């Protein structure tokens, strides 16, 4: 039996938005409500994600601010902060709430503004992002977030022979997918040569191995299984797993296996009664090309050590046997931190409904979303399926 259903999905374009967070979130919230055919009054609670508005924009207590702006003042709002896994954590708790009967219908979503064009410059945002690494034992070394994933990826390269060219193929693939997505931050294709010619950010990552700083918002309407059939296009949520790992990186037993993702995937698959072999496609947290390689292995979509070759040989492309990030992923679609988790749910919903337009995958009946936070110390894995 499904744990819950998504009956409405909406998101803004990811890119540059020089408007207040409340206006940005309302656009996604109204998109989700309109898609569901629901009114604000139908929503009993808001599960809201935003990672760093306090640091980046000096605005806190955002829950009632966005609820008020979107016509939902009065309902309970809970705000989640879990670095880049912020709104997947909100989604997890929303699913649990409707499953338990706490609420029948809720809105889940997130918003963030990260672009230098609308806020702080690259150096300042690099510091804000680095706040997710350990304040005492990592930040004083000058560790950045590209650096965090570089540390994980270089050990993977050492263990498995993953190459910079294979990493570049992840970027090329996701830019290609993103070119089909009208809401993507980056809409143009790139070549392996262009990726490998880019300036180094933190080796082995060059500029195009990294996702952009993005502004954006996303939202979904989540309802109980009992209520789902009263909406036009429900998509089932059959499993949501959530796990954490040791912080800091140096104390993780094997950092590059991203154990939290493996634990979360096992939990999600078990709830859904499926295995990785049953998954038709995945949206994974490719904040850096290496992160997609690690995620594809942690989810069991490819064998350990095969993430790089799978990207290079096209297995993870739209027409491959395990399509990954048909939306373009964080790499091309963009990564407004607090909006990323529910944006993955938006993509799963549209693909599983067969409403993904030019980027629609054939035979998409079951999919998985993998949203990672911090140095991979938080991961939420969700399984969604065409309603049975």
């Amino acid at each position, binding site marked *: 039996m499904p744990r819950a259903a998504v009956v409405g999905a909406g998101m803004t374009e990811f890119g540059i938005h020089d408007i207040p967070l409340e206006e940005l979130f309302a656009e996604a919230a109204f998109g989700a409500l309109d898609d569901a055919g629901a009114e604000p009054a139908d929503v009993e609670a808001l599960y809201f994600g935003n990672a760093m508005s306090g640091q980046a924009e000096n605005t806190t207590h955002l829950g009632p601010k966005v609820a008020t702006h979107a016509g939902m003042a009065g309902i309970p709002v809970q705000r989640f902060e879990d670095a880049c896994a912020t709104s997947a954590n909100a989604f997890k708790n929303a699913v649990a709430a409707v499953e338990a009967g706490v609420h029948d219908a809720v809105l889940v979503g997130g918003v963030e503004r990260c672009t230098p064009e609308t806020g702080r410059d690259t*150096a300042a945002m690099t510091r804000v992002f680095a706040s997710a690494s350990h304040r005492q034992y990592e930040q004083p070394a000058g560790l950045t977030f590209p650096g965090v994933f570089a*540390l994980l990826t270089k050990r993977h390269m050492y263990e498995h022979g993953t190459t910079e060219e294979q990493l570049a193929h992840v970027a090329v693939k996701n830019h290609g997918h993103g070119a089909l997505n009208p809401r993507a931050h980056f809409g143009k294709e790139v070549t392996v040569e262009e990726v490998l010619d880019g300036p180094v950010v*933190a080796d082995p990552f060059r500029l195009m191995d990294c996702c952009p700083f993005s502004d954006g918002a996303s939202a979904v309407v989540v309802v109980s299984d009992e209520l789902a059939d009263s909406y036009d296009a429900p998509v089932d949520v059959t499993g949501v797993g959530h796990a954490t790992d040791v912080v800091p990186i140096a104390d993780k037993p094997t950092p590059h296996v991203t154990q939290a993702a493996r634990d979360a995937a096992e939990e999600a698959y078990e709830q859904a009664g499926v295995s990785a072999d049953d998954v038709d496609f995945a949206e994974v947290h490719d904040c850096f090309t290496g992160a997609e390689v690690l995620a594809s292995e942690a989810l069991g979509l490819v064998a350990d050590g095969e993430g790089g070759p799978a990207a290079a040989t096209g297995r993870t492309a739209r027409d491959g046997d395990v399509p990954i990030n048909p939306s373009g992923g964080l790499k091309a679609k963009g990564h407004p931190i607090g909006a990323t988790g529910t944006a993955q749910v938006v993509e799963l919903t549209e693909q599983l409904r067969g409403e993904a337009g030019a980027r629609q995958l054939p035979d998409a009946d079951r999919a998985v979303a993998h949203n990672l936070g911090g140095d991979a110390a938080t991961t939420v894995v969700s399984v969604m399926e065409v309603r049975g």
Partner: protein
Amino acid sequence: MSDGLTHAAWSDALREGALLGGACDDCGATVGTPKAACPHCGARGLEPVELPTAGTVYTETTVEVPPEGIDERGYRVAVVDLGAARVLGRLDGAAEIGDAVALAGHVEDEQGYVVPRFEPA
């Protein structure tokens, strides 16, 4: 049961050229930074232990785009495997994964927090 290792004690030791970790009597794990309880089994009161100051590079990267507050570019950050535990710090010099390195001091940020600095052994 010991009183456990604190950030202050860990930092003071590092300034004096020593690396401290915490050893768990219950599960046998050793961690390279202070914890109020063992992250692997939950046992409280990890025993402060002095870690070796030499080891091998477990993983490393060169940061070319620094955060606000750091003016230099092209500095290296590494996780160093000391045997019983690993620690993260700066790496000066040409050591790659698997190469031998040794503690060579520390770096300090604007709030006075310190992390180890390693050089090729």
